[in-house]
Each structure stands twice: as structure tokens, then as C-alpha cells.
């Protein structure tokens, strides 16, 4: 009887220790998860900010300015555009 009690006591102490360890690990994991989530939110915010910045860099005004000044492009007019007739090209094929 006494031996059984000792075995049970050891099991109890063991399981208690194990529970403490698991709880500790659980908290560690939760902290890591929470940190990852915060990071995710941060990345999301950065993404939005960068997207807005990209958009600001690519506004019509800036694109036009760069196209004109740096790339020496000019606006296409109907005089320099050859319009392809979709229906006619279908027939030819």
C-alpha cells in the first residue's frame, strides 16, 4: 500500500512539474505568436505606406514629366497612329 502511495506521489509531483513546464512553454509560444502578429501588422502598414509612396511616384503628372524630359517622348496624335481594324485583320487571318 505504502509503495503504491509513493508511486502515486511521484507521479503527481512529476505531472505538476510537467504542467509548470508546459504552461511556461505555452506562454513562450503565445508571446512569440503575438510578436509575429504584431510584426505582420507592421508589415501590412509598411506595405500600405510603400504602396502609397509608389502611387505618389507614379502619378500621371510625374510619368508625363519624366516621359517628356528624360525619355524625350511626346503625346501620340491620331496623325501618328495607325489604327488596326480588328474585324478586317480577323478576315485576313
Amino acid at each position, binding site marked *: 500500500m505504502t509503495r503504491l502511495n509513493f508511486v502515486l506521489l511521484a507521479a503527481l509531483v512529476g505531472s505538476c512539474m510537467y504542467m509548470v513546464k508546459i504552461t511556461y512553454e505555452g*506562454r513562450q509560444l503565445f508571446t512569440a505568436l503575438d510578436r509575429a502578429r504584431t510584426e505582420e501588422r507592421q508589415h501590412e502598414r509598411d506595405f500600405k505606406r510603400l504602396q502609397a509612396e509608389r502611387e505618389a511616384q507614379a502619378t500621371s503628372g510625374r510619368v508625363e514629366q519624366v516621359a517628356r524630359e528624360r525619355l524625350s517622348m511626346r503625346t501620340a496624335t491620331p496623325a501618328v497612329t495607325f489604327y488596326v481594324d480588328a474585324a478586317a485583320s480577323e478576315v485576313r487571318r
Partner: protein
Amino acid sequence: MSALNPRAGGGSVRSVNYATSPLLASKTPPWRSRLLVAMVGIGFTALLARAAYVQVIGTDFFQQQGEKRYVHTLQMPASRGRILDRNGALLATSVAAPSVWAIPKDLNPDSTPAQRAELARALGMNPADLEKRLQDNPNFVWLRRQVEDETWAKVKALNLKGVHQVSEFKRRYPEGEAAAHVVGFTGVEQTGQEGIELAFQRELQGKDGSREVVKDRLGRVIEDVGQQLDPIDGRDIALSIDAKVQFFAYQRIRDAVAEHKAKAGSVVVLDVETGEVLALANYPSYDPGDRGKLTGNQLRNRALTDTFEPGSTMKPFIAAQALETGRVRADTPVVTAAGSLVIGGRTIRDAHSHPVLTVAEVIQKSSNVGAARLAMQMPPREMWELYSNLGFGHKPQLKFPGTVTGRLRPWKTWKPIEQATMSYGYGLSASLLQIAQAYTAFARDGEVVPVSMFKQDMPPPGLRVFKPETAREVRKMLQMAAGPGGTGPLAQTIGYSVGGKSGTAHKQEGGGYASNKYRSWFVGLAPVDKPRVIVAVMVDEPSAGKYFGGTVAAPVFSQVVQHTLRLKNIEPDLEVKPQIVTKAVPAEPESF
């Protein structure tokens, strides 16, 4: 006596009998031990009662108090919805921006003036201003709200006690001043103040979330408790605006205002098929992201809020009604002899007199007398109904702050001279958008379609005002008006046929008209056979010598039409002398 004091008897110390200590010998009364037992018993009972109270009866209260000490509520701010153009380009978006705040009673004793000056520099503030701000409240002051991430990084590097940050959102407007009047802006608390930001505040704003967590000594979140409310981000709003057309229109009106030394100008571009507003630009404008020196003049969305007498742009409607009811045909002559007409003692004059004009020529030459003669054949009620059906005197069905109704008086109060002047656009008022909307009647073969700021999946049902043939006939007249011999030949474009009507008026001042202040405008459509866009341009007080709508506003119209049709990939309907030169280059025979 000897029993009490053994030494007194001269005997040795060893002879002391401890077991019979005289102190113990005194008899304790039994009530004392009972009292003691009772008191201990009462003590335990009190403890038990307290334990029962804490654990059972008052458990909620204590649980709450406990939670208060270790549970923290984290606010999770929702992000405001974005505003997009028809192709998904960003017109407004929210980005995270830290706001820096301080607890002066922590900061002041713990830092040197030099450190605080450093802090002011990092925040881009004046050191004296910072000191003054720190005196405001010992517990909390905002130092600077919605700064860049780098600014906060610099402040953090100073490592000062009592300086904190809270994460907030800041609105960014990539299109800047070009779309300012459409998009509007928000205040520092992210509430809409103008434009779409104000009109769709509820949809855009979203709902903040919160979560309750347990934090450990290091401030790390270790457990979620209670319920979590996820933040609901605001809805994105997609407008019908095309950022490219919008920017181009803004640029052109800005240049025109500068060129003609004008006070202001507006452009409205409508998609004919759906009634969508492709562009709505005003100058002067402002940068919605930086409103430091904002004036009311810059804020005004003139195309929607400023009404004026539509003048000559009304004549085509009168001609259309006369054609519609079979009173005249396009080639019916109208006597405009001597260029003046007397009605009720008042004289109506033309700028250039022509003896006789056909109905088509009345529009082409913009004859006031001709328009008045056509109108006087109609009962006032018929004319009122026509104008009313075209949307004059009604607020456009646009969910947009500041949209005005304009003025169209009830027909019963019209005097004959008023009916005559109304035929050429005086005595009633409308906004530029209303005039553009009314022109959908010509562009859509007789149907007026309500304008919309939002992308339409299918064309909305219109209100039929004219027969398709009538609309087509008037479009030809408009083409003549915008051609050689008309009032607006500068409206012509390369490759696309255009039709439109110019307008010029003395500005109203007080009760009368100012003799040297003008307003010039042009409204038209293109291509004439199958219109795709309507463009309306208005320039306020051009004062560089030129002031006719045909010379001031028509060139802007021409450029905007040309650009918009090209962007929409619409094939030119006019013969264009091609400038494409290709040379037949024979290919070098390959060696094999």
C-alpha cells in the same frame, strides 16, 4: 518565606526544586483558559467567514479588481477605407503614422534643457514652443501628431523618460491637388471634412477593435482573456473618376487660368454612355495632405457649387424643342433683322447683326434674337418643362457635399421679356455640372441621364426629352458652331469631330452686371456621330484681353477632348493626314 527564597536559607543552588516553582504553584482560574480557547475559536471563525466572503459572496468584485491589475485592454484601430479611381489607382489611402506624446512630470525633472532642445529638433519643432507645450498639462501633452516613422525613430534614440508614441493613421493623397476637390480631406482625427471623405464618412471609417490581454513584467502579452473584437477596416470607395483624365483636365485648366490671368476655372468630363464623371477639376486648388495655408477660395468646388447664368449654351435646347414640336426645321429661316428685337419695351440685341438666319445658323452664330424668336412661339409652361426635364432647377443626384440646385423660377411668374432672355440663358442659373448633364440629352440621342461619381455597371435609365432624330440634328448644329463660321472653331481637335456651344457673360455684381468682368465657358461633345464624352469648361474672369468663351474656354475643351478620347482608345472619325513614314527596307538574304 524560606520556601519562596531558597538562597535566603543559605542552602546550595542545586537544592532548588523547579518542579515546585512557586510561580506555577499559583492556581490559574479555569475561565482564563476557556477565554483563550474561545478567542482562538472566534479568530478562526472570522477567518473562515472572510474566506467565504472573498471566495463566494464577493468573488466577482475581487476577480474584477484582480483583473484590473494585470489585464490590459489593447485598442486596435481600424484602418480607414481607401478612395480609388475607376482603374484602381489610389486617390486617398491611410498610412500608419506615430503620434508622439509626453508626460511632462516625468520628462521635465529627468532631462536637461539641452536634451529637450535635441528632442525639439528631432520633432522639427522650435525649442521654445516645446517648453511652452510641456507647461500645458503635467500629465499628458501631444508633442507632435502623425509624424513619419523616421522621426519617431530619431526621438526614440534620444531615450528620454516620459516620451511615448501611439500609433495613428495619416491620410495620403497621391494625386495631390489635381483631385483635391473630388476626394476632399480628413481632419487629424480621421473624420471627413470635404468631398468624398465627408460624404462617405460612415462607409470609410470602419470600426475599431479591442482585445484584453495579460501582460507580464516585461510588457509582453502572454495570454488573451475575455473577448476579442477584431477591427473592421473601412470600405474602399471606387469612383468613376479617371486619374489620368482628371490630372490632364486639371493641368489644362490651371494653364488656361494662368494664361488668361483669370480668377478661377473648372472642367467637367462626363462619359456619355453611363453618365459617369470622368474628371471634375477646379483651379485654384490645394494639396489635401498639406493644408497649412488653405483659403476658402481654394476650397471651393466651383463646378458643383458655383452657379451662373448658362447664357448661349441654352440656345441649342430651344432650337431642339422647336424642331421636336415641328414648329421649324433646321433650314427654316428666322428673321433676325437689324440684330435687335423689342419685347415689352426692352430690346434684345445680337453682337453681330444678320438679316436672316436659318435655325441651324442661329445656333452657329449664337443669335440672341433668333433664339428669342423661337422661344416666343412656345408657351412659358412648355419651356419650363423642357428646362426642368433637362435638370435645371433640380439638385443633381450626386451624393456630394455642397451640390447646388441652381435657379429656375416657376413659369407662372415669367414675364414675356423674361421668357425671351431665358431662351438665351439669362434669368436662370445652373452649375457647370448641371449644364454638362443637360447636354447628355444631345449626346445620348435625346435622353438625359443622371450623372454619377461612382462606377456604373450598366447605363442607368435616362429621361427622354427629345426624339433621336432631333438630337442628331442639333448635334450637327453644334458641330457647325464649333467649326469654321461658328463661335468656337478653336474647339476643334485632330481626328475627332466635335460639337459644342460657347458662352460668354458679364459677371453679375450686386443687382446688375459688371462691365469689365466676364465669365467664359464652352460645353460640347465628341465625336459628333456617336458621342462618347461631354466636356464642359468654365473660366472665371479672364482678364488678359481675351474673354470670349470661344477663345478662352474652347482651346481647353479641345485639348481635354483629344486626350480623353485617345485614353479611351476611341478611333478618330475624321480623316487625318498620316505623318507615319515607313520605308520598305529589303531584307538581307540569309546565308545557309
